[in-house]
Every structure is written in structure tokens, then in C-alpha cells.
């Protein structure tokens, strides 16, 4: 009888990439609409951004948006690198480096959003 092989999760990775992509349709659609079509004053974006982030729902929206879009982008880049013929070790190291970049980005994005949310519009 053939031996059972070890489990791998390549398909799950691609499935999550597809699901995050679908979520991004919603997030990006809302963001593009709000920022470029129905945002308010056309030039003074600062006040619009600050006022929007004072709303905890919008703050939560943008935080989740940053987490998902950064994951989708960095994972996509990882797929492109995986399709090259560099060594397995190099692919693993680059994968780890991209994971680190992702974590740093979402930490930075979270801190930035929270700091901006605490700001006030000068009168």
C-alpha cells in the first residue's frame, strides 16, 4: 500500500488569497467612492480624513482594510517569487522576510491610524 503523504497547504493559501481578493472588492469599492467621489471638500483632505477616523467604525474599517490588502499584496508577491527557480532555501527565507514586512506594515498602519484618529482639526 502506498504511504500517506504529509499534508501541505498550498491550495488553502490560494483559497485565502481569492477570499481576501473578494473582500477587497468591497473595501476598495467603498474607499474609492468615499475618497474620490463623495468625500467632501475637494482640497482639504486633512480635515476629511481626521473627521472620518474619529468615527470608530471607519477606524475599524480602515484597520481591517490595511490588514487584508497588505496580506493580499505581499502574498501575491510571494507567489511570484515562488515561481522562480531560486533555491528552496532562498524561497523560504524570502517568504519569512515578506512575512516580517507584512507584520511591520500592519503594526505601522495600526499605529498611524490610531495616532491620526487622536488628532484634531485646527480651527
Amino acid at each position, binding site marked *: *500500500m*502506498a*504511504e*500517506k*503523504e*504529509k*499534508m*501541505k*497547504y*498550498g*491550495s*488553502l*493559501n*490560494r*483559497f485565502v488569497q481569492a477570499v481576501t481578493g473578494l473582500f477587497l472588492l468591497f473595501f476598495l469599492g467603498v474607499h474609492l467612492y468615499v475618497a474620490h467621489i463623495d468625500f467632501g471638500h475637494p482640497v482639504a483632505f486633512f480635515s476629511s480624513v481626521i473627521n472620518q477616523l474619529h468615527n470608530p467604525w471607519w477606524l475599524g474599517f480602515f484597520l481591517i482594510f490595511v490588514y487584508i490588502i497588505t496580506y493580499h499584496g505581499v502574498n501575491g508577491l510571494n*507567489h511570484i517569487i*515562488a*515561481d*522562480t*527557480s531560486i533555491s*528552496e532555501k532562498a*524561497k523560504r527565507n524570502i517568504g519569512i522576510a515578506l512575512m516580517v514586512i507584512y507584520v511591520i506594515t500592519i503594526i505601522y498602519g495600526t499605529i498611524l491610524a490610531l495616532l491620526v484618529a487622536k488628532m484634531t482639526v485646527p480651527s
Partner: protein
Amino acid sequence: MADEYEFEIKRKDESGKVYYSTYKVPKDKISTVLEGLLYIKENLDQSLSFRYSCRMEICGSCGMEIDGKPRMACSTIVEDLKKDHIKIEPLKHYKVIRDLVVDIDPFFDKYREVKPYIIRDDDGKYDKELPQTPEQFHEYANFAMCIKCGLCMAACPIEGSDPNYLGPAPLAAAWRYIADNRDQGAKYRVEVVDGEEGTSRCHFAGECTEVCPKGVDPSFAIQKLRRTALKIEIASIFGGR
């Protein structure tokens, strides 16, 4: 209109030198590219090397890059190319041994990796036949038409950047067996078909399906294979296999 076709063929000699040779082949002597190559070998240049066997698109031997696309030389009608100057090169993504002859051993090695045979948990010890309805047969019949010509491997963009990728033909073969109701071996093929060089590397470019001479549709097989692998992965996370 000229009375001759001009075959420009990429050659490689025993020293490894790569060069192009051009031959004029009378139009009234040939209809397929393979006939053109045989005419050249018999009348113009006996040193030209290429593979062929059945001459009827069954053996899979005569795959080559004809006018920029992987095709079978025996079934490519020269007139259908609609040009008098035909460029012929060996298949991409394979090591060239000589002229139009490529090393297909790595392709067969990958084929063997997916365990292309019926696997059963009962080790073949069963006391009655394994029934299969026509509907069950049609689930995999198309994918059993593969003649292992390797054209899909030459067309795949991922094979071009990473030759370690299993490729369309082996993965389609894996699906052919997994889709067969007599087979119980999906769980034994998971590591290979879903590993680093497996289905997750396919991005559905579909070029393998475009070039397949037997209409096997490997890209479709890989998508089906990925869904099956996903179900196995999710089941394994929740404890089942």
C-alpha cells in the same frame, strides 16, 4: 506566390554550437511539417535530427516549436500556417540534446511523482469487479487521452521560470486518477500535487489547454485537482483525512 517553403530550423551540434539552417522545400512534395522535415533529411541534409514515430498524433514524439507555438509536427499542415517562411525550434523548457531532439526524461520523472496508477486501500484484493457507470467514466475519460507529448510543459509560463514545477501533464494525470471512482489514492498524492511545486503554482494562464493536441484541458484538471486538495486540507485541519 513561391513554389517552395522556407524552413528555418534551429540546430545544435555535438559541440553545443547553436545556429539556424534554412532549407527550401517544394510545396507540392509535402503537406505537414513532419513531411517537410523528412524531405529535408532525405534530400537536403541527412544530419538533421528530430523525433517522430506514428505520424498520426498518437505517440507524442514529434512535438516542437513551430512558428512560435508548441505543436505536433505530424499534424501541423504547413498550408494552415499561411506563410512560406516557417521557423522551427526545439520545444522550450527542455534541455536540447541535438537539433530538434530534447531530453524528455525530466518530464517523465515528474509524471512518475504523481503516482499515475490506480491506488486502492485493499491492495487489489477484491472478489468482484469494480463497477463504473458511463457517467463515472466520462468524469476522467478526457484526461486519459494524454499522449505525453510534452507540448503543455513547453507552453506553461511557470515551467519557463521554474522547471521544478510539476507542470500541466503530470497534474492532469493526477486528476485523471483521483477522478476515477476505482481509485482511492487521493490522500497518497496530496503532498506532491499540493506541495511547493504542485497545483498552487498554476495561475490559470490556460496556454496548456490551448496547445494540447488531444483536447485534454489540463488547466481545467488542475483547477478541479486544487478544489479536491483544498477539501482534503480543510478536512485534515479538522481532524479527518
